[in-house]
């Protein structure tokens, strides 16, 4: 099953994917990197190195979608959950072709994914930073929430101002599941796990 992690640049998608994969018991990341031309290659990384290599504070650190496959032992049956870390979707038309192409790829994957985890930055909701909630988030909600398992993860709950932000997110997307998490401290991962497992096809 594919779980797509989507959101604005710098919402914390990559750190969430890596730490969540570790939380689910993964020791080593076997990264399937697809480049723009459709080729794929594999890369083995210990988690610590992966974190160093894939995560940064600057937006658009993730240039292409990363797929992380996790084998889940669920009673007798074994299942594979593929976490898809995508390129952030920014507001407006981006001026770099590479980024636009990567965003198109993200939307393409979105249309094929089974489950969507939509990351928002809880402590930037009411600011005017690029991570603030915007039209893109509204449209992701509108596109993805009706026809597949969908949850909003309000990230960065460890940072100041995030409690207010979480409230604002809940207000704005009333009726949808909103989970407060911290990709950094792994707060709320238990809830995310139970959400994902509930919808494992």
């Amino acid at each position: 099953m594919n779980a797509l992690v989507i959101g604005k640049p710098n919402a914390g998608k990559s750190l969430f994917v890596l730490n969540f994969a570790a939380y689910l018991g993964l020791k080593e990341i076997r990264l399937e990197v697809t480049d723009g031309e459709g080729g794929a290659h594999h890369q083995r990384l210990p988690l610590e190195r992966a974190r160093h290599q894939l995560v940064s504070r600057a937006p658009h650190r993730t240039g292409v979608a990363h797929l992380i496959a996790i084998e889940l032992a669920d009673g007798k049956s074994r299942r594979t959950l593929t976490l898809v870390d995508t390129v952030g979707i920014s507001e407006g038309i981006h001026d770099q072709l590479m980024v636009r192409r990567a965003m198109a790829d993200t939307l393409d994957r979105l249309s094929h994914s089974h489950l969507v985890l939509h990351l928002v930055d809880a402590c930037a909701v009411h600011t005017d930073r690029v991570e603030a909630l915007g039209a893109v988030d509204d449209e992701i909600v509108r596109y993805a929430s009706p026809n597949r398992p969908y949850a909003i993860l309000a990230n960065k709950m460890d940072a100041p101002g995030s409690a207010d932000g979480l409230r604002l997110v809940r207000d704005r997307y009333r009726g949808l599941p909103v989970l407060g998490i911290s990709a950094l401290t792994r707060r709320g991962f238990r809830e995310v796990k139970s959400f994902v497992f509930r919808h494992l096809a």
Partner: protein
Amino acid sequence: MPASVLPSDHSDPLSTREVLHWLESGRLTPDAALRHLARIERHAAPGRPDAPGASPDRIDHILAELNNLVGLAEVKQLVAELRAFIDIQSRRAAVGLRTESQMLHMVFKGAPGTGKTTVARVLGRLLQALDVLPKGHLVEVERADLVGEYIGHTAQKTRDAIKRALGGILFVDEAYALARGGDKDFGKEAIDTLVAALENHRDEFILILAGYPDEMAWLMASNPGLLSRFPIHLTFPDYRPAELVAICRLMLEDRQYHLDAEAQARLTQYLASRAGFWHANAGNARLVRNLLERAIRQQAVRLSPLPNLSRSDLMLLTWADFEGSL
């Protein structure tokens, strides 16, 4: 910096592809793209089923691949039966009924180039997708891989091959060769080891013995224990000319070549006129492949002196490319 430019064009993108393309070329903002995607999907599939599981998807994909193989009606029917059987077994298990583990060891009878290995490979993936085999890989061996050079060597080599195949399929090509040497031959020991493994590693791997029809019948007769252990016998008939032409077309498509009208007509005629001409075991689909590959080389010889070549020039095979090699 991201520039906030609204799309100047008034018309709307019509397909998912187009939306993504417009987004990439900077004609749409991401949020507008998402809006269009939602609209297009609403129109395209009103009663779209909820997020299908990965596994049925994969099974269908593999079945489609099998169905794309030309001919092989008997094989396709068997696979449909297997799938239904496995499905019912798992549904019986779900309501607590006793399930039956059926032996799936098989004998494939057919001339070379009739698709035995191809089918075995697809079967492995299919059985893996159906959770019958944990890995579903194919280990291809022949007499030389199983039979050793001194006493005791054979059992060891055969057991090694079986060990590699656990979780998947052990495919013994030209299996009759194991029984050919007579009583003193080590091939007999290989057969005995295989038969023992069928009991000791029950349900852990699937053994497929493949070879020419006549010789396989002879192998089965040579060891009374063998026949009863292979409930599934599949015959791979030689391809008919029309099927060879269809195979030819698929192979060309795969390699991104096509035939001009003359080549198409004359090749069809050639394949039809030679039906039954070939030696009974002369090669079938493999022969078509060799024919095409020779033509592709001929085309390269014909084209390479020319300075300017268009895309369609590079794809086109003419009758001249075939003529020399027939």
